């Protein structure tokens, strides 16, 4: 219920940003900055760089809100995608990802356990995604996690999991197919 209301508020504020209202950008910021900052921090692992990226994200939102296509994705998905892309661009520009420690197939990082808040919100699609991720093989889930949360490339994932690049590509591809099939059920 709260989550639903929040989504409506974000969508409405984003539409107002699209028509050039700077106050609406502040509303979007108030509603989403804690979440998007968490995404920046998780991918970049550096507070000051995460702050820079967060600033870039909202300036991108300001300039692109007018072309945001609500028919293609929800406003929160769009914001998260901008944030991940910006953060990943920074990682790529850095040359080397600092998250290069070996990825174990069974590894689930302690800080990634669902928070009480997320659990309370009980987003159906999150529960469903979690169920589908749980259904993947351990090495597939670990590889997707490294890409999604650490911003690793195929090459970096292959190095972290000590498999040839081709193997990593087929792991990821197979995992994506399984995920899609599972989510469509």
């Amino acid at each position: 219920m709260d989550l639903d209301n929040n989504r409506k508020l974000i969508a409405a504020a984003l539409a107002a940003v699209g028509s050039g209202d700077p106050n609406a950008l502040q509303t979007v910021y108030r509603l989403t900055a804690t979440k998007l900052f968490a995404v920046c921090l998780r991918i970049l692992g550096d507070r000051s760089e995460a702050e820079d990226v967060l600033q870039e994200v909202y300036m991108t939102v300001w300039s692109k809100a007018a072309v945001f296509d609500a028919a293609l994705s929800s406003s929160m998905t769009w914001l998260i995608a901008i944030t991940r892309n910006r953060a990943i661009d920074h990682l790529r520009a850095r040359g080397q990802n600092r998250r290069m420690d070996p990825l174990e197939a069974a590894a689930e990082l302690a800080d990634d356990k669902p928070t009480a808040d997320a659990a309370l919100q009980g987003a159906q699609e999150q529960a469903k995604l979690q169920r589908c991720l749980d259904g993947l093989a351990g090495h597939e889930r670990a590889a997707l996690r490294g890409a999604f949360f650490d911003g690793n490339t195929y090459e970096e994932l292959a190095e972290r999991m000590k498999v040839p690049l081709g193997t990593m590509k087929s792991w990821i591809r197979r995992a994506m197919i399984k995920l899609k099939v599972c989510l469509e059920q």
Partner: protein
Amino acid sequence: MTDVDDHEELSPNELLAAEYALGVLAGTERTAAAQRVARDRAFAALVAAWQERLAPWTAELQEVAPPPQVWERIAAQLSSAQRQRPTFWQSLVFWRGFGIVSAFAAACLAVLLYLSTASQQAALVASIEGDGQRIFVAVIDVKRAAITVVPAAYRPDPTRVPELWLVPPGGKPLPLGVLPSDRPSQIALPATFADQARRDAGLAVSLEPPGGSPTGQPTGPVIGSGKLTNM
């Protein structure tokens, strides 16, 4: 989890969309995919669908409040971005900022570019000023009976619209039309006024209700005026 048949495949486009949304591409592959999102709507839809599938994963991150200076920096950048209108006019502001040409010369140049077929001999120009600022620049192409108006320092009014008037020396203002506040516009010079559009006549801008003055005379404040001169 259901078994996935080994023959199950993603189309090459969908695979690329999934890889881009997940973030595993690097270098030129990543750049090319990003560019394709911008110009290929079908591909953008595939990417968006994958972003939608993956985005809920972020729910497991503990939200973190950014320090207040992040918003302060955004607000500062926003107000400086707003001072520069992202239009045709922006390049003029840029020139003026660097002092290469005066805003008036820049606007005249813009008007000339805009009116590429205008004959200079038959052109009249006016700088419409108010409160010490140049708010619009207008060029009248007498032969074509066309008036081109470029907004300069005009600040849009929330409830009223700017309307342009031709003011013959010693005569009553003649309505020329409502002006857009954010881009150059071209309006026709009515044939009945053509004789009045000459050197030393004036142009003025008043603020009027949307749609323009209901009376045929200015009803709101005159916010700027200027004399027509030969170009």
